[in-house]
């Protein structure tokens, strides 16, 4: 395996330690159980926003901790959802007394572990709510859709609302609205190698691609011949635009994220065609993010997420944010 690691079993932990050193002025990291929290937490009277995910998706989620976004993020083992005791330790550390919102990506393990965490937190007297992220249009049944790029958008918008002093019920409503107005789809041009496994999760010939992948190195919905950037964008955009039922003159936020092994040069080629397509349909690209925001270790490929914007969501998106991965 071609990886810059010391020992496969220590990869997630040593990466977290390096992250702590790199962002020590912005955040704190607690170990055993592991969680990352903003330096000034708990912020009294502010709704707390908490999220978690396996390691290997960086900057998701630890890179989104900071003023204007998450109060805490719990990193699990590579591709494995964090455990309830991590969430519980995090909420004890950052709870500001105004309730807490858990942003939960719809994956079996992620949902089960946060369910246990929410039960334990309620038993301890915390006022907790959750919002489910299920934006992957490659899966037909809406309630079984995986949580993907929409997680970042919900965390940003909920984080901005919390920072502005909005109460928990309003933050929850905004988070749910954002989640319901976002759709994603991803394509892989290679598999990825978990340090625990040592070889790619699946084998993909260089002239093929996997369409409808998640972010855990699993194969996608189907395999087909590798086509040009514009054709890939067509494949990803068609179900997204259809499922959102986007109409002319509507405004959207576009997130194009590399999956870890694709250069930004290619991501802008992708964005170029998305921009063209939307312009042709008179849909306004109001905001965009192009880069590596939600990844799957060293997988080559990209994810496209569209969020239907309204003036309130746009202004919350524009509100200041100070995290390792997003800052304005």
């Amino acid at each position: 395996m071609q990886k810059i690691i010391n020992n496969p079993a220590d990869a997630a932990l040593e990466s977290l330690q390096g992250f702590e050193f790199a962002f020590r002025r912005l955040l704190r990291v607690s170990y055993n159980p592991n969680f990352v929290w903003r330096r000034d937490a708990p912020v009294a009277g502010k709704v707390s926003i908490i999220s978690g995910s396996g390691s290997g998706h960086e900057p998701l989620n630890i890179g989104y901790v900071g003023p204007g976004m998450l109060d805490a993020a719990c990193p699990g083992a590579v591709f494995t959802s964090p455990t309830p005791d991590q969430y519980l330790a995090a909420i004890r550390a950052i709870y500001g007394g105004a309730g807490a919102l858990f942003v939960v990506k719809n994956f079996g393990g992620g949902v089960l572990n946060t369910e246990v965490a929410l039960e334990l937190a309620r038993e301890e007297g915390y006022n907790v709510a959750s919002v489910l992220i299920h934006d992957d249009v490659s899966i037909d049944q809406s309630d079984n859709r995986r949580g993907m790029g929409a997680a970042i958008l919900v965390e940003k918008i909920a984080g901005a609302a919390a920072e502005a002093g909005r109460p928990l019920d309003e933050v929850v409503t905004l988070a749910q609205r954002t989640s319901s107005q976002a759709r994603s789809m991803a394509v892989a041009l290679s598999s990825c190698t978990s340090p625990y496994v040592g070889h790619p999760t699946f084998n993909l010939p260089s002239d093929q691609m996997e369409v409808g992948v998640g972010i855990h190195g699993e194969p996608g919905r189907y395999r087909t011949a590798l086509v040009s950037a514009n054709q890939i964008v067509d494949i990803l955009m068609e179900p997204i635009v259809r499922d959102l039922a986007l109409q002319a003159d509507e405004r959207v936020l576009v997130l194009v994220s590399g999956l870890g092994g694709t250069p930004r040069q290619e991501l802008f080629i992708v964005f170029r065609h998305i921009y063209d397509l939307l312009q042709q349909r008179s849909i306004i690209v109001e905001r965009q993010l192009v880069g590596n925001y939600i990844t799957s270790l060293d997988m080559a490929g990209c994810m496209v997420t569209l969020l239907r914007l309204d003036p309130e969501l746009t202004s919350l998106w524009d509100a200041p944010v100070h995290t390792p991965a997003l800052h304005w």
Partner: protein
Amino acid sequence: MSQDITLAQFRRWLSLFAEQVQEQVDLLTELDAAIGDADHGANMQRGMRKVQERLQDPTATGGDIGSLFRSIAMTLISTVGGAAGPLFGAFFLRAAKDVDGTDAVSLEQLAAMFRSGLEGVQQRGKAQIEEKTMIDALQPAVEALEAAVAEGLDAAAALDRALEAARRGMLHTAELQASKGRASYLGPRSIGHQDPGATSAFYLIQSAAAALGRQAQAEES
């Protein structure tokens, strides 16, 4: 009663389960790589190491079956992660509920514990049989155990029936299309692969048969 299954046997069960899972880590990883995210082996290994550590320390695991199960449940929930952690945790948490303060149980009570454990997993995961999950190994095993108890079989014979049912259930998952868990994202592509969680649930039953059945037989003769 010589038929009773003792706390020592339960400890032996858990330790055998931990050993078997660790011997099969590579298989579990491979099965999960085919239809999941390749972490099931590492998840279970991490949990089972902690279970073994816990079992070394009798004060940490309590002096009765209920406390032992609760302690193992919490260990699994806080170390395994993924879907398997909360689900195996729910099995032991629920199975513990009727055996607090008890240090030996009858075969009937054991069957009731397994039934409760299965209910715990189903309440947490909401999966039914034939959805290609650990339920496909657990549920047939519990039903076979209950039927064997009703027929009046002894512990060894009853647990052997459970073992065979779990094995059939585990192998049958290869024919199924997943509708729960990570493999469900693959749609029809999940067919032809054995479910990793059903495989570790099979080891749970296999180690139970070895530790809870055999010992009882030895005591009888």
